[in-house]
């Protein structure tokens, strides 16, 4: 698994947020566009791309994009 690919896939779930705003240390819950629908889209993307099924609580416990990446890595 590659962090840069993950960030690219993560950023694709947003429409108005510029991809450059999505970095490993981005606290994604604070992004203006972040919503429950985007959270569901990220969960579905991770299932489709990495075959890892996250729970809503995993999304909540991750602060940065890299935190989420590390959760996914630990379950691949």
């Amino acid at each position, binding site marked *: 698994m590659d962090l840069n690919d993950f960030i690219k896939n993560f950023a694709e779930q947003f429409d108005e947020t510029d991809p450059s705003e999505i970095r490993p240390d981005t606290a994604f819950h604070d992004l203006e566009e972040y919503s429950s629908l985007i959270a569901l*889209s990220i969960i579905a993307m991770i299932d489709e791309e990495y075959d890892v099924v996250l729970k809503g*609580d995993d999304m909540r416990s991750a602060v940065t994009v890299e935190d989420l990446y590390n959760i996914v890595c630990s379950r691949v």
Partner: protein
Amino acid sequence: MDPMVSPFSLSGKTILVTGASSGIGRAAAVECSKAGARVVLTARNRDRLQESLEMLSGEGHLVLPCDLDNAEEIAGLVADLPVLHGVINNAGFTKILPLQFIDEQSFKDILSVNTVAPVLLLRLLLKKKKLAAGSSVVFTSSLAALGRTTVGNGMYTASKGAVSAFVACAALELSKKGIRVNAVCPGMVDTGILSNGTISEEQLEKDKMNYPLGRYGKPEEIAWAMIYLLSDASSWVTGTNLIIDGGYSIR
């Protein structure tokens, strides 16, 4: 009708409940038995059906395991059934996926269990003359079917929308036989249908605040509405979608 018996009683009636191994189906089986019915419980999992059976009041209840996703198994179930006075078509499930992630197989699976199976079951019950005159058929639909849905729930919403629409046509066609057909449309009920955790506990707690009565429903609160629709108390009610939602749709 015996004037000494409440019209809400199910005494003397045999009721089939699908999805009777958990959630609303299990509660429906238990409450129907308390209302005096003889209950036939079906679902895939024999052990959990057995657990439901042990919760029932009265005697004479039957467990007939069946995978409703399989047309041959539905035919086998119908062949084994006694003559019924009521059916609760309740088996169903959901999978939360935003629109751009909906996959064909998941959508087909949800439609197969939630929409196609109950229609095939009803068709066979009629064909094999397993529904007595004056029977009542109840479908578990959803508030989502009536347009009050949530993000990520498109496949389930479509499957239940079809059920709620189907009820009108079935009610029309079966009215000559004196068979009534209705649906219940619950808001969110504490059943574990979302227990896989895609939606977090925190989100669910927040969502409960959208209900004027301040909480999600309990399975038995849906079962009691089903009992009304199965009983002679609703003898002039057919083709309806009965909303049971703690006031959600007022808002």
